[in-house]
């Protein structure tokens, strides 16, 4: 799965790259994936799965290998 941690969320990516690929062995609830990846859900404002905006609090939201996941922080301006 391709993951893009935008903005300050890149701080939590491997090597602080923000963009990385990861193998998802089995379909995984997104909350569980975020926990494993070490990305704090409290600091995510918007999530996009395969180009569509999705709700992180949707218990049925599953990520699979081959997906593209975009996570955006609460951009507060400047």
């Amino acid at each position: 799965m391709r993951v893009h941690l935008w903005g300050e969320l890149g701080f939590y990516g491997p090597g602080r790259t923000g963009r990385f690929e990861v193998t998802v062995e089995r379909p995984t609830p997104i909350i569980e994936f975020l926990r494993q990846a070490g990305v704090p859900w409290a600091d995510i404002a918007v999530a996009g799965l395969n180009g569509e905006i999705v709700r992180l609090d949707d218990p049925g939201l599953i990520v699979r290998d081959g997906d593209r996941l975009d996570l955006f922080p609460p951009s507060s301006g400047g």
Partner: protein
Amino acid sequence: MGFGSNGAVLRVNLTDGTTEVETFDEAFYRQYPGGKALATYHLLRDLRPGSDPLGPDNVLVLAAGLLTGAPVSTATRYTAIARSPLTGAFGESEAGGYWGPELKMAGFDAIVLMGRSPRPVYLWVKDGVAEIRDASHLWGQDPPAVQEAIKAAVGDKMARVLQIGRAGENQVPYAMMMNELRHYNGRTGMGAVMGSKNVRAIAVKGSHRYTELAHDAAALGEIGRRLSKAVSEHPQGWDLRTKGTPGLTDGLNAAGILPTRNFRQGSFEQVEKIGWAAFEQIRSGTRSCYACAVRCKPETAFQGERYSVTDTYDGPEYEAIAGLGSNCAIFDIELVARANELCNEVGLDVISTAGTVAFVMECMEHGLLTAADLGGLDLRFGNGEALLEVIPLIADRRGAGELLALGSRKIAERLGGDANAFAMQVKGLELAMHEPRGKVGVGLGYATNEAGADHLVAFHDPIFVNTESVPFKGAMALGITEATDVFSLGDVKVRNWFTGERWNSAEKVLGLCFFGPAPRSFISVNDVVAAVRAATGWDVTVDELLEVGERAVNMARMINVREGFTRDDDVLPARLHGPLEGGPLTGRSIDRADFEAAISALYELKGWNPATGVPTSERLHRLRLEWTADPAGVG
């Protein structure tokens, strides 16, 4: 041992070419420590109500913050304040860079410019001595040539030059000032005021160090060293250091709050052409302000097939990318970078320039203006070549630029009909590139801010959404405990917003950049307090700093009260009370009644008359500002 300030303000009478130094004691500085507070004190005292903003009676004050020049990251800012020629209201714009710190080291906390010079001049300030010099040969020259000539004339390459461009010389009401070419007092036309006084530049140089002014230089230095290391260990600090503001574009688009086509839409269908990936292709490096480890300033340079850009100026920052890009429907980062460079070269505020252009584009779309009205210029959405053509015309007030130089509000007044519905401005100041329908607190700031629609008035709503988030935790030391969503205009939002406004205002008094302190970034609230204590020796608390911020806001409000502004001026453009047309927040609007109720609740917290928006005598007394209600009074 000092208290972080020189205790000296330089007063310049340009009409008769004289200067004098006014001194103030430590007790005065505890009330008006620097920046916005110190500058507005002088404006309230020296500006006669009703003065022509571009006449000799206007007063332009440049004031460094209390901490400006301290060896602490982001302590770089100074404030420019005058009656605004764009709005007729309180005019205000902060900038970082190198000029503010140098002013402090040259022995002054502020410069007050009064009158009008009979000929073009520049001011040379060195170690407590000021000299007014002829600038006839510099008038009309490009900023790099002016900077180089002044540094050569004063014989010091390290002199720091604050100057205006052609737009300021021609008194375009949204002309900006720049220091060291890369740092801009963009908003509310402070460059036009300087131009109206026939002042092209102010060069400063000091032999002193801030630590000589500090109460406890060792403690201040230790805080500064610790914070320099902390930047990269904090998510927000790391992000600003790594990407700067151009990193914001994609996230705002994803959230549906990227201003697009004059704020009709909140999402841009080709965002990747102006987003981070596109910006990376033209980025040539990053730069810093004085002694700041954040290093957020983007630098671009490229030689494209159509346009070339050098790294002479700053940017494009996010505001330029959204303003000249998505809000004008221009899908081309190279063109946006060139338009940004042009604005800087001629000395125009990029936000008001972009906002005025987007407004004219929409008027073209609706037939309120035609190319014939604009000297043949087809300034429609998406026409980047026309954008490049019109920027110098605005600065020179020629052709189509004669009209656009008025700004969106005055053009709308001239056109009549539906034009006012397309003018995205408050009090005459064009909106910054933040969409209030997806973060309504920004709308409260746009509406109520004394200077008009600025985006740095208070915290943006996403900070308050989740109590477990990094920024929310950073805000808790300010007394913020309750979360609320980005669309809410309820009591929690209003209370949080009021705290945010006081804290942001305190930052403008202290001279700290918005990208330093929590909750936006990496410097904890307690470290801000510790830095002020080390600089001054005062036993300040968070509450005292919030009160300092509140005092500065009330002083600005009293300028507007004198100029006849009321609650009726604290309104949003009607478009924001209607539905967004595109993106994830399609259909979202700001309910007018809810918004009015929130302003009433906010006035109550502020101690302002709910019907008029005027501070009550009780609140002025609490803030020790009774004198501001008496035109003859002096604080």
